[in-house]
């Protein structure tokens, strides 16, 4: 582009253009999210600046910053004692609806922890680099980035408001310095890029430091802009928006192990997307009946197999799971495997049909098993056996006799999630009264723990809790009628390698770590 006889000003423009083309874009569609124009979630009430320093933040969490003992490598799961580490969120009991946490997800390394809330915001926490000089210190999670992922929208055709609540967040495997995640509300999926900026260009020829333009005719000498260090800034920008592909409400997204495609599932359909292409998606499952009045079941969750890129499963409201192979046909309406357990006739009751609805399905990390969560239990299925699960764990069986009341107060519709630990030996799920349960598959033991402000002293070991189903209540036990059904733990996540768990109560995020014996 450099030609003979060009003016100095034109040459300057060329250099500027080249600089802009290379490296990070300063402005793109939507722009990097400015943090001052929306109301930050209560995690960052004290901090409304435009740039968020990354590692050097003073931190605004109210929890302790006393380092914990580092996780030991030896010992079985029964040696694990869970200790309080941190809690994020407002203390006061008056919960703002927008602050209700709706999803929690660790990234693949466990260094980042993302939460989504009902207000459409995503908050990402980063684990601080461990202090090498003090090997006993366990790193903590501090706010890394916050952005408004989804806004409330209005569908004029159907006269419906589309909620901005984040239903799911899924991290993409890291390919370069930046982090990518998919976040979805009921109708639209967005690919977000979270990148760090710790240098800035200085010395533009046509632009002053404060942004004012310089008249090219006044430029007499040229200089090449140089990078100068700056305070670390974490920017989140929407790179792709995948919209208008779902008539019903999206309940799941799942990234394929091929690192190119992902699926999104709503009540009746599952679509396959390419991560780069936003104007097209392929419908791979469609269970909508010709006559909607004949509808008997809906899709409740879907997930890709962790290492077989042709395999995915989806669960239904009737308690069945279908495994589909995309190699079989373009439309996977016909399943390859159907996992279904015949109902226990002794447990048959008026509400047994609706409590069999599966709220979450998760493959184990090794891909040999999958776990499903229905209202009262967690089931682990061997992918090679369709007739019944290999393990069943009762989460809160004492609620079986209370189903009628739980129906009236709407709790029976709560969708609990479940998760595996890094080596698939322990599974975890939430319950009511801010209790959460862990089931050790190998040791055949289970424990009930509580996430509460009262047990939030630094390094405090969590005491196992017990619910008294009936009869004489022992000391320290809590009776079923005293349970607070407004305090529910629906979302939990387990660090992919370490014994660190993130447990979301209504509007607080608790982080617990294990203690070295």
């Amino acid at each position: 582009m450099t030609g003979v006889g060009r003016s100095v000003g034109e040459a300057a423009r060329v250099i500027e253009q080249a600089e802009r083309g290379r490296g990070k874009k300063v402005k793109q569609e939507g722009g990097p999210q400015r943090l001052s124009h929306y109301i930050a979630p209560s995690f960052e009430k004290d901090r409304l600046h435009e740039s968020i320093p990354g590692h050097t933040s003073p931190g605004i969490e109210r929890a302790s910053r006393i380092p914990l003992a580092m996780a030991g490598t030896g010992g079985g799961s029964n040696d694990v004692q869970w200790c309080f580490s941190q809690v994020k969120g407002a203390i006061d009991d008056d919960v703002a609806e927008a602050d209700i946490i709706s999803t929690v997800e660790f990234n693949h390394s466990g260094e980042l922890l993302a939460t989504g809330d009902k207000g459409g915001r995503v908050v990402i926490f980063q684990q601080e680099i461990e202090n090498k000089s003090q090997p006993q210190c366990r790193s903590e999670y501090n706010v890394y980035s916050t952005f408004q992922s989804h806004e409330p929208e209005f569908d004029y055709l159907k006269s419906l408001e589309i909620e901005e609540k984040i239903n799911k967040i899924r991290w993409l495997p890291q390919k370069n310095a930046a982090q990518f995640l998919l976040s979805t509300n009921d109708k639209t999926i967005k690919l977000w890029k979270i990148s760090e900026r710790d240098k800035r260009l200085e010395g533009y020829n046509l632009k002053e430091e404060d942004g004012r333009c310089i008249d090219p005719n006044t430029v007499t000498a040229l200089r090449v802009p140089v990078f100068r260090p700056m305070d670390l800034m974490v920017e989140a920008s929407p790179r792709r928006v995948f919209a208008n592909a779902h008539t019903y409400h999206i309940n799941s997204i799942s990234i394929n192990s091929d690192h190119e495609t992902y699926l999104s599932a709503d009540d009746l359909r599952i679509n396959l997307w390419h991560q780069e292409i936003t104007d097209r998606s392929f419908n791979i499952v469609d269970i909508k009946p010709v006559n909607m009045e004949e509808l008997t079941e809906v899709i409740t969750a879907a997930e890709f197999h962790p290492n077989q890129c042709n395999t995915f499963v989806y669960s239904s409201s009737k308690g069945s799971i279908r495994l589909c192979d995309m190699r079989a046909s373009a439309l996977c309406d016909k399943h390859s495997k159907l996992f279904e357990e015949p109902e226990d006739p002794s447990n048959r009751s008026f509400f047994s049909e609706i409590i069999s609805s599966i709220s979450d399905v998760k493959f184990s990390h090794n891909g040999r098993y999958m776990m499903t969560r229905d209202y009262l239990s967690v089931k682990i299925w061997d992918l090679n056996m369709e007739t019944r699960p290999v393990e069943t764990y009762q989460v809160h069986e004492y609620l079986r006799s209370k189903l009628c009341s739980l129906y009236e107060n709407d709790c029976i519709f709560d969708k609990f999630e479940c998760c595996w630990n890094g080596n698939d030996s322990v599974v975890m799920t939430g319950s009511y009264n801010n209790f959460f349960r862990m089931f050790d598959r190998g040791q055949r033991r289970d424990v009930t723990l509580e996430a509460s402000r009262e047990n939030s002293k630094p390094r405090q070991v969590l005491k196992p809790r017990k619910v008294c189903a009936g009869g004489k209540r022992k000391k320290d036990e809590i009776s079923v009628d005293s349970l607070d059904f407004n305090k529910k733990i629906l979302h939990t996540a387990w660090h992919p390698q370490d014994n660190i768990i993130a447990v979301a109560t209504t509007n607080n995020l608790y982080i617990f770590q294990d203690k070295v014996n």
Partner: protein
Amino acid sequence: MDVSAEAKRIMAVSISKLYASRAQRGGMRLHRSLLLSVIMRSARDLYHSACLAKEREELGTAHLVPVTPEEDAMDTTANGEQVEVEVSQVEPEPESPLTPPIQEPMSSDSGAAQGACKTRTFSGKETVEDKENRSPVSPDRHSRKRRGKASVAPDFLPSKRARLSLELGEERVLRTGRRNCCRAGDAFTTLSLNSNRAIAAF
């Protein structure tokens, strides 16, 4: 009777939830509506069977009158089996009054005194659907004509409906539902039809 009162209550709760979900932010949730209508139908079946049992007690008949299978628009059985309730075995239990054993299908007696609802076959499920090449025009809809049961119309429902339906739109839906019922007195069937319509409106 305990069972019928309980079923009535569940019906009322379900209806109010269904109506409340219309005003919900984000629109009606299909999954939730489906579960609510499942409960409503079960409660209705239970109520009917409880009422029949009561009637039989009053009439003093000893033998079983087979209950005519009711065909609903939203049948939960996969292949259109008809589910009947053995009336004699429905007993009010103090702990769980809502556990009626559901019997496997029996042959239907269409001439039963209770009246019959038209059985609808599930041809939709049996025909192989070529979804990729399907024409946009949907096939003939099954007839919506239903003949309700000649049971006593529950007294609470009409007034409940009047209280709940404040919007004009809802009134229209209800009236349409009534028209499709040959026996206008069967409010339960009407209401389940409305719930089906509510879901069909998606």
